[in-house]
């Protein structure tokens, strides 16, 4: 299954090759052209009728994770973090580097912890990755400084239509674009699979420079805190309530005209949707709407519980409804707002 394949692949910022290769393979024969730009974005083009609007579908290929900073004499490794909550790290299973060397993140045993240490969050510099080597020399045969470290977490389907995986943010977006590009849609569509979103929208900053598009639909996995004990107004999104439409975040204020147009399609087609109830976070739409002379953007996402962790959980219906809504919008809504 596509989402399983995509989330099993590792693609830390700057190391998106494995994910990119899967996408290329999936899209072979479904698009007119594919190119990889100098920073690593995969840009695919599927032509529609000549005078039809030009829509960009964008998602990012990279995921959060760690990076090897140094190898110690005893064969353990120090690391830096790309957007991971340090409280999640102790006892985590990881893959190191392209060889996907198995490792664990070690921690001082509870028996030896002092009273104060038991209530503290370990500093990232006090933790280390253990790949089972006994010396620096042995470890250096397997890993290098600068290697990426990805979560080792198996894609699992459980409950009623729920999926647990790492990197749902934003392989859900990549999967959705692949599905949409395999359909017969009546527009000129460019699919952009960006690199380095998690480290500050770097890939989209480059991709947005040379775009001549009417509209960007940016597809994401986003925050979902619909758990017991969280006040309703702080939940951001609710699982199973449909794809969520962005109102505003730290990088964009989404223009009302386009938001209303997609909401109308959702209501006409009876596709569930919800709003993303926060102004926090940021997405590649931040680059697109301010790139060049500015391209309007719609932000749409699948709610993901425990996002940025090895155990993100999503509802498959939200994903299916997201694809359905974008498909319906492209077929029935776009021409009402463009041209």
């Amino acid at each position, binding site marked *: 299954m596509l989402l399983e394949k995509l989330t099993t692949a590792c693609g830390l910022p700057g190391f998106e090759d494995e994910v990119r290769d899967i996408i290329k393979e999936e899209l072979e024969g479904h698009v007119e052209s594919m190119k990889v730009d100098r920073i690593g974005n995969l840009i695919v083009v599927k032509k529609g009728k000549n005078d039809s609007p030009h829509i960009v579908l964008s998602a990012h290929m990279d995921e959060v994770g760690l990076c090897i900073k140094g190898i110690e004499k005893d064969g353990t490794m120090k690391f830096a973090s790309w957007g991971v909550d340090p409280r999640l790290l102790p006892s985590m299973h990881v893959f190191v580097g392209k060889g996907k060397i198995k490792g664990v993140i070690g921690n001082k045993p509870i028996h030896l912890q002092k009273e104060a240490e038991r209530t503290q969050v370990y500093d990232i510099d006090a933790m280390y990755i253990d790949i089972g080597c006994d010396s620096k020399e042995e470890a250096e045969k397997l890993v290098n400084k600068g290697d990426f470290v990805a979560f080792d977490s198996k894609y699992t389907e459980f409950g009623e239509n729920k999926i647990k995986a790492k990197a749902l943010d934003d392989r859900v977006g990549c999967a959705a674009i692949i599905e949409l590009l395999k359909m017969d849609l009546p527009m000129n569509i460019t699919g952009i699979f960006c690199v380095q979103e998690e480290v500050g929208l770097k890939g989209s900053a480059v991709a947005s420079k040379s775009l001549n598009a009417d509209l960007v639909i940016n597809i994401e996995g986003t925050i979902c805190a619909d758990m017991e004990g969280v006040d309703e107004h702080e939940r951001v999104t609710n699982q199973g309530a449909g794809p969520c439409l962005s109102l505003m975040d730290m990088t964009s204020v989404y223009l009302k005209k386009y938001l209303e147009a997609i909401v109308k399609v959702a209501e006409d087609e009876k596709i569930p949707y919800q709003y993303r109830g926060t102004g926090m976070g940021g997405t590649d739409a931040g680059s697109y*709407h301010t790139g060049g002379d500015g391209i309007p953007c719609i932000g749409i996402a699948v709610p993901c519980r425990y996002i940025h962790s090895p155990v993100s959980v999503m509802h498959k219906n939200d994903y299916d409804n997201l694809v359905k809504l974008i498909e319906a919008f492209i077929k029935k809504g776009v021409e009402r707002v463009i041209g």
Partner: protein
Amino acid sequence: MNIEFLKKLCVANGTSGHEHAISEIIRDEIKDLVDDVKTDALGNLIAHKKGPGKKMMLAGHMDQIGLMITHIDEEGFLRFAPIGGFSPTVLLSQRFVFPSGLVGVVGCERLDKPADIAIGKLYLDIGAKDEEAAKKLVKVGDVCVYVNPFAVNGDVVVTPALDDRIGCFIMIEALKKIKKSAFDLYFVFTSQEEVGLRGAKTSAYSIDPDYGLAFDVTASGDTPKSLPMPMKMYGGAAIKLKDNSVICHPTIVKHLEKCAEEGKIKYQYEILEMGGTDSGAIHVSRGGVPSGVISIASRHIHTPNEMCAISDIEACIALTVKALETEIK
């Protein structure tokens, strides 16, 4: 000075991304004074007044800070996300108004101690009986701004949205007064400045100007025990040297100094250790654009009580006219 028009601009409702009402007022006021006027994808209003010489882009932002509704609860209370810079202590107990005219007041959850105040603990109360009643009046995604009691108080104006309707006002009044422009002029009334200079970024890209000149409020260092700053209310037009978004280009700074001296216009320097304005985006557009800023020293910025001196507004208008009629050598 045309106080009535300034009032019209200031009381209009337009936060970032929702500048339409402001844009309409400005378009009506200037359309006969320029050769072409258009609105771009991000809502910037771009007016071109053809002239000789190099391209000069003038920028004043239309948007003001505001709130966006993110949630409506079962009791009919609203939660919100701030659009632009707000402090929770300033927000508490303020009145906000939606474009529909609906007014809400900011309340706070019970606090154990005053220092616990945070934007997440605040809500907007529109007095609705319940969720259903609230949803008839307002929906998630709607925006609102400070209620606006515009006042002229002797020598000063006091109003919300002075930031930056005053910049728009100075540009418009200067446009009305210019006799012979030394530049090919683009008056840009920008969108989304308060959330990160976004409108200025795209409009600077499309115009590709040779020079940039922004108009905005700046802080004033003349209130009791304020941060020491050289800018003072009644100090004249402020020529910006730096803020956190731009170090003003010496070409523009010297041009403004020379124009102020020659025109005997009262001026002061602005050195701001925080914040930024549209020139921050313009000067790094494409291959780089020498840019400066004419600022107006204002008190109580980002509160409902933004205040500036009428004599400073007049000095800014006079300096702008002189700067646009004088060639940059």
